[in-house]
């Protein structure tokens, strides 16, 4: 009985391409859609309430963002947002509440390493790259816009 390791590896590669379970995309899209949508509806509701209270239109966005970030942070703090994220995926990651979650969760996690090298240094491990490339690309677009004004 002589079986070469090459045969085993070939079989392994075949199993690996056929037998790895895939996430249920349709279900995940559906959950992401309605949870993400619901978060947006809440945002819109808050926007409408502020608007009724007489907040000027160009400041509304800032007010709504502040409230949504606050909600995201609170839900992270009380241990709800990670469960929501597991259920809704991108539906809870993409809205600004997800951004709050990505900053608050490492801040909580690394508190044990102290306020300087723990909380402060690790706070942006997830949001950091988003900020770097978000701000970076907005600068590039800004430069392009300056030269190619249409």
């Amino acid at each position: 009985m002589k079986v070469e390791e090459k045969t085993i590896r070939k079989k392994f590669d075949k199993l690996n391409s056929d037998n790895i379970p895939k996430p249920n995309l349709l279900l995940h899209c559906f959950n992401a859609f309605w949870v993400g949508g619901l978060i947006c509806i809440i945002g819109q509701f808050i926007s409408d309430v502020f608007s009724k209270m007489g907040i000027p239109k160009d400041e509304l966005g800032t007010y709504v963002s502040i409230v949504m970030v606050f909600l995201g942070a609170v839900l992270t703090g009380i241990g709800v947002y990670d469960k929501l994220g597991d259920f809704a995926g991108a539906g809870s990651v993409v809205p600004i509440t997800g951004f709050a979650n990505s900053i608050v969760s490492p801040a909580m996690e690394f508190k044990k390493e102290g306020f300087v090298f723990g909380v402060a240094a690790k706070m942006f491990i997830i949001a950091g790259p988003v900020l770097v490339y978000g701000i970076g690309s907005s600068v590039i677009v800004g430069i392009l816009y300056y030269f190619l004004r249409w």
Partner: protein
Amino acid sequence: MGRRVGLQTVEIESKPRIIGTYNIVGPKEGQGPLREYFDKILDDDLNGTESFEKAESSLLYTAISESIKKAKLKEVDINYLLAGDLLNQLSSSCFAARDLNIPFIGLYGACSTMAESLSVGSMIMEGGLAHYVVAATSSHFSSAERQFRLPLEMGSQRAPTAQWTVTGAGAMVLGKKGDFPYVTHVTTGKVKDYGIVDVNNMGVAMAPAAVDTIKQHFMDTGRKPSDYDVIATGDLGIIGREFTEKLLLEYKYDMKGHYIDCGEKIFDPKRQGTNAGGSGCGCSAVVATGYLFKNMLQGKFKRILLVSTGALLSSTSSLQGETIPGIAHAVSIEFGGE
């Protein structure tokens, strides 16, 4: 004196006995299907400490000191403590050893540490260099997540192939005498890497190492799967276990009816949301000292093969795009009758 058989196996003739074992697990493991086999189930996964790293260390300390008590020994009687864990610089083991009055050798084999420490311990015993040796290991879900993955409260989805690190520690005391299960063979594995890069697919990444070690054990000893009541891999999970079974068929070894995976056994994936199963050093440690060892004592299993499996990646290597090397070590344990 022991002798080498075949390429990678050592026959342990002095039959070092496993004279005391102890395991301790977190709340989630305590709700799993193997709950009745655990010596202690925690209500609080911090175990009264202020960080998860300290908690893991306290679990390991408890497992080691309680296993020594169970063997009716004192710390000074133990000649070597062989232990390891997943954290950087083996911190759980080193900090547990700090509070123990035992000469300490730290071992890193990722999740293969239970079989690794038991292997090395048996060989030291066989050499007549120790009266008593303790082999132990631990892992903690939250400390492993901190080191290898994302913050706990971060809202993200787990892949279907992802595994859940077991919170738990297990220890075994090896001695020379008594009517206890004993080690007969040790097969030391080679590192195998078939090019998996996905850190959420560790069971599959480790499967080639498990296949190689199990195959080599059979070739070296001339045994076959049916010679064992149970062959237990450490933490391949549901998918890795299927891979291993299928790949061993290529070598004409049919594992059906003789094969379990500790990671698959320890959780109920549907009820507990653990996807592909359990993982971590603690996984094979608590299943070996619990389900396997206790069933041996009751005479249900007469001969078992413990094959703990480890994924030898680091958080740096995976960021640099390295593939995941795997390792597996096998220890054959017998009790009660030929």
